[in-house]
């Protein structure tokens, strides 16, 4: 199931908004494609990041992949639990496996993102 309360990128990240704050993570499809996640390199709090820029790196058994920020904003918090339990990204990508929180997001960027229905179709087409 693709949660309907958030937006999606073509690179398989999600962003869930609360005003101009947002939570960022990767989708269930992304975690399946990566395989077992062994490490998440989290950004520094306070880092400014542009839409489509790398905000974190996820290492799985055989690959290291960038997580691209769906929106421009400033890193407000990171999911420190991932430093000891990176497998949360596999187990609960939409909940406990979140990557970071952003603040002061540029909501103009939403027009480049997909809703759950569009993302579902995108997955089927690709």
């Amino acid at each position, binding site marked *: 199931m693709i949660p309907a309360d958030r937006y999606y990128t073509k690179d398989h990240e999600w962003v869930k908004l609360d005003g101009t704050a947002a939570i960022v993570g990767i989708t269930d499809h992304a975690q399946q494609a990566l395989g077992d996640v062994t490490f998440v*390199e989290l950004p*520094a709090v306070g880092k400014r990041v542009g839409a489509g820029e790398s905000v974190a*790196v996820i*290492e*799985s058994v055989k*690959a*290291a992949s960038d997580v691209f920020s769906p929106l421009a904003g400033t890193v407000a918090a990171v999911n420190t639990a991932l430093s000891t339990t990176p497998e949360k990204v596999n187990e609960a990508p939409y909940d406990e496996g979140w990557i970071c929180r952003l603040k002061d997001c540029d909501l103009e960027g939403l027009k480049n993102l997909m809703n759950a229905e569009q993302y579902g179709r995108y997955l089927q087409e690709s």
Partner: protein
Amino acid sequence: MPFVANTDADRAQMLKVIGVQNVDELFDDIPPEARIQSLNLPEGLSEAEVYDHLHRLSHRNAHNLICFLGGGFYDHFIPACVDELAGRAEFYTAYTPYQPEASQGSLQAIFEYQSAICRITEMEVANASLYDGGTALYEAAMMALRITGRRKILLDSGVNPIYRNMLYCYTTNLAVAFEEIDTRHGQSDRSQIAARLDDATAAVILQNPNFFGAVDDFTDIIAMAHERGCLAIVSVYPISLGLLKTPGSMGADIVTGEGQSLGLPLSFGGPYLGFMATRREYVRKMPGRLVGLTVDAQGRRGFVLTLQAREQHIRREKAVSNICSNEALCALRALIYLAWLGRQGFREVASICAQKAEYAKTRLSAVPGVTVLKTAPTFNEFTLELPCSAVDVVSRLIDKGFAPGFPLGRYYRGMDNYLLVAVTEKRTREEIGLFAEALAGVL
């Protein structure tokens, strides 16, 4: 390596198997006009002529000099077992294993080497080795930039000048600012380091013993660096760790060094051995291959290349370094050397070096006009002040059968009359005495 014959019959059979008439056919895809017509090389020589030619060339070197030359590379004794074991065909492939887990013996040797480096430096994790002491120091500097996100590095001028030149060369096109801190009476200048450390400083790079031979305890400098959120990188001479306070116990964050003294012969340009160790918390920022110990599905012990997602074959341009290799054979020699000496032997070698160096100091400072720079304790290397140019003295002593040391004027302005002298466990009382007499004779 076994001898493999390559007869006309062998070649004919190989050509038949792959289905071509002759060797030239293998190059048919290359248009004739694109093939090199001539390499402008002399006519080939017979095997005997090649040997003769190379022997002639090698005899233009000075042979059998009694060696008091150091400066980062030392004439230590190499036990026969190092050549014997490292020369075994199972090990005699210097390159990094690309199908690593199939080579459990190689991985075990590297794992034990890493463990040995951790033991002598008192650090938590070591990599599978780098090319040499200079590249290891460069990689440590890059690692500090990655960890801190800062761009400035304080570089003690007591760090080997060859390594400093390498740092400048390698970083020519990178956004990093080095600030050199001149030594004060041959020792790290605390007040200058304190004044130049700031919130933009990624690391301070130190060396123990420093290039003048001075032994230091960097605990205070490292604590100052840490207060500023800055890392401490210490380059060490591994043999000295048998006697001196370890960089780990001083609080260093990254430790590097040249491993030549651990069972590798002196040679112009190597191959040598760079070692690197760090704290566990920085392991993901460390370059180089890393062997880990684990168990397989049936609970049996096994060795693996671990944390490979740091490396360029997986992380591509975001890799921590373009180093994807190691000096496996040299690392193996270091491991055999350390294992053969053991804890007690390692201490004894260090202790003998230091004692003989003290004896040499006494003998050499008795030569009229010669003084030993006495600003700090030394290990096995010390600086002599001569009444004339050290370069001239070196050339006169080479004619008398000695490699007397390293003339410091080559890298340090105003030090033309200073000579860096190293003494290893191989130097005898007699040789030291002859050296003192010869020195007196050429002044």
